[in-house]
């Protein structure tokens, strides 16, 4: 039997390519994009024509709103490469509303949002950036005089699906960090039961936005998610398990201080506080800014920015994690499980659970199990 590698991709139908070309996109770029997207979704190459069809047929309406955000996820979107933000805006999606880039302002901007919501009721994709503050009757965040609580509820309820970009919209993020002064919540907490895909990360990786959208267009369904609503294609594996420095961890080679020889030689950052062992994200494989780098590659430990409650559960960021499963020590995986449960619990305000979990972690404890 032939291995998969030899399967030849069927061609994208000529009429699709012609229509794409008529819209000012080069054939080459379009084929490249469809191939890359198919690969990003871990689909067989035989799916390329279907991806092409999904992308080409019609531009789905998208409403992108920001609440308690820093616009970091909008900026991340502007750094997208395959496809680029320009291609997405002009060719692939019909972005009906997005504060950061839209030309209209004031009541004309709000009118565009409301028109899109009515015209495409049940059909548009909603993208939410930032948490939603429930405190002070919603006065901690208003747009055009309307509270974000009301705005968000209405938009989610009328959307075909909601994609949350960044940790704030996915899990509450920094505004919800203790003591959560504004009673900030995630979209899922505000509108329980809604169809939501969470794309956490601080900020979200643009590659994960484009892959999620195209998955939806291709299959008409949202991607499979884990228990925290995160697509498995992007959040299915622990950073530690895909880390380029894993070999050094297994070999017991650690950077002891920033700038020391081990640090310069790319040794494991575990002792400098890396949270890779407790974080599920595709940073090591996808990286950022077109694959140029990611935190561990730049010599800084992971801070766990895609995990719920990470501002409380993963900090202090420069203190090493308690116990991490090493080479051949599978039983400690349970402890990682406990760590995540604690993280989730803290996100919902059960601070005591985290305290119990961390009690056994003495900072001076410096023994790491090594296997020969």
């Amino acid at each position, binding site marked *: 039997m032939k291995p998969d590698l030899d399967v030849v991709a069927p061609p994208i139908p000529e009429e699709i390519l012609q229509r794409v070309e008529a819209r000012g996109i080069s054939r080459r770029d379009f084929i490249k994009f469809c191939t890359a997207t198919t690969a990003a979704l871990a689909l067989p190459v035989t799916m390329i024509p279907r991806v092409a069809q999904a992308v080409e047929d019609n531009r789905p309406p998208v409403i992108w709103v920001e609440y308690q955000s820093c616009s970091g996820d909008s900026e991340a979107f502007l750094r997208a490469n395959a496809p680029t933000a320009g291609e997405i805006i002009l060719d692939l999606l019909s972005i009906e509303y997005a504060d950061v880039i839209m030309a209209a302002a004031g009541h004309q901007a709000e009118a565009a949002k409301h028109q899109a919501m009515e015209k495409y009721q049940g059909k548009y994709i909603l993208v939410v950036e930032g948490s939603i503050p429930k405190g002070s009757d919603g006065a901690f965040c208003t747009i055009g005089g309307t509270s974000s609580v009301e705005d968000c509820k209405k938009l989610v309820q009328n959307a075909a699906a909601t994609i949350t970009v960044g940790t704030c919209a996915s899990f509450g993020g920094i505004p919800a960090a203790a003591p959560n002064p504004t009673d900030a919540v995630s979209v899922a907490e505000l509108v329980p039961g809604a169809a939501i895909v969470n794309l956490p990360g601080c900020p979200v990786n643009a590659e994960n936005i484009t892959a999620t959208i195209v998955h939806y267009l291709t299959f008409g369904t949202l991607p499979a998610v884990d228990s925290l609503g995160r697509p498995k294609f992007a959040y299915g594996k622990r950073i530690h398990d895909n880390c380029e420095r894993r070999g050094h961890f297994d070999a017991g080679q650690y950077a002891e201080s920033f700038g020391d020889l081990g640090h310069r030689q790319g040794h494991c950052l575990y002792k400098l506080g890396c949270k890779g062992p407790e974080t599920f994200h595709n940073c090591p494989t996808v990286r950022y800014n*077109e694959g140029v780098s990611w935190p561990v590659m*730049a010599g800084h430990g992971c801070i766990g920015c895609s995990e719920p409650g990470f501002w409380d559960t993963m900090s202090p960021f420069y203190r090493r994690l308690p116990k991490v499963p090493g080479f051949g020590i599978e039983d400690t995986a349970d402890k990682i499980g406990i760590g995540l449960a604690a993280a989730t619990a803290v996100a919902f305000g059960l601070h005591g659970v985290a305290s119990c979990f961390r009690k056994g972690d003495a900072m001076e404890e410096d023994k790491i199990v090594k296997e020969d």
Partner: protein
Amino acid sequence: MAQRIAVDPITRIEGHLRIEAQIDGGKIVDAWSSSTAFRGIETILKGRDPRDAHHFTQRFCGVCTTVHSMASIRAVEDALNIQVPDNARLIRNLIMGIQNVQDHVIHFYHLHALDWVDITSALQADPAATAKLAQSISDWPKSSTTYFKGVQEKVAAFANTGRLGPFQNAYWGHSAYKLPPEANLMGVAHYLEALEWQKDIIKVHAILGSKNPHPQTFLVGGMSIPVDPDSQNAINADKIAYIRKLLRRARTFVEQVYIPDLLAVASFYLDWADIGGGVGNFLSYGDFPMDNSPGTGSLFFPRGIIMGKDLANVMEMDEKQITEYVTHSWYNYSSGDDKGLHPYEGETNHQYTGPKPPYEFLDTDGKYSWVKSPRYMDQPMEVGPLARVLVAYASGVPEVKQTVDFVLAKLNAPATALFSTLGRTAGRGIDALLLAQKNEVWLDQLADNMGRGILEVFNKEKWDPATWPKEAQGFGYHEAPRGALGHFIRIEDQKIANYQAVVPSTWNAGPRDAAGQMGPYESSLIGTPIADAENPLEILRTIHSFDPCLACAVHVLDGTGTEIVKVRVL
């Protein structure tokens, strides 16, 4: 008859901003600036490890990412008296420098340009005439008829779908748009080019700091990106070459596209050199240390104060003169809301007293914003690239003087033209040009250090909190893209006792103070002509000229601060 309008949301900015204005006789006679969102990050910081603070503060803003990390680590380093290695100084300068350049270009093309450039008019342009215009102002190699024809066809194909997406419902066709179709087409083409360019050149942040937005490489005491010519896991010769290529591309675009476009567009809008002046007081903390002497060392952009547009008299900046008022902000001071407090002593209890949403208008006689009102010697101050450039210009910094004079000569305008909406936009271009050129110098110095075996990037002497004094306080300065940024930290028992950020958009966007003095946004709008109150394009021009960043501007200091202790007891 007087008419009250509200523009909410102000789009193409970071964050949530609302402007209310009173219009009479075709002009703005009164204006109120309000921020309508609040997160409370400084409350969240209390009780945490000061070495972690920069991760939190960086999330003040994802547009001017990096800047709140810079100010934060400098505040802690100031408090603990830490001197960073020379390589850390250079890497920081490079990160800040390219941030300013990229941010200014994004601002000009993607946030501000549509106030001056009418996309719909670009469809009527003659591509050959556009090429001629573009070639007459710059050597940029792309400016051919075929190129502009291609862009025009792309835009036309988009418009023909009838679904204009982010370009719908705008002020297209407004009488205040003055550019000929050819200049509009050139603007649209470069809007698209800049969109490509910005994602590429900012890879400098990824190389030096893992990613952008929100690079993860800053450390109290230095940087975490290692430097070692003999390692594949550090900044080596290969990475230096990569950065050099990106910096050159950044500079070329600024020199051949941004600045020529800025001057060309400005030449059609010279009346805006008389509009939008504002408070006329300017503050710059100065930045970009040129050597590694203790304290701030010698700064490329000097520190200073200009009062009452008096360029003949640059005064020394004394951070003790900074206070913040909450008279018209949704906070209370225990000693009364009519007093200003220095950030170290600052206290803030948020209390919303505005109308219950949904609302039509705010009660601007009372409190009406989540932004506080910072004052210097009780005076409102404008901060930003213009302030930074003016202080350097008036201080006689040769490179700055030369560049400012070049721009003024091109526009055939006197220096006083800089006190305006147009001046603010020009000041940003001057700032970008100067830094785009300076970046390569800092990279050369870093390479030179590496060549001489100087590899230190991190000073670990005070990394261990056990080495810290029981109490300390520090001021972290930075000239961010949007201007003077100050972080103030008090450390007690190895934890953050108090954290306060006085950021550029707080200075500029703040409401009235106890004396009723307007903030810079408000003041700059007075007298602005409004052709059509339904479509107040002119308000966007002046407000965008400040490059608002509201997520940064809103913060709170105190709060209850009790629950966090539960989490901290580990």
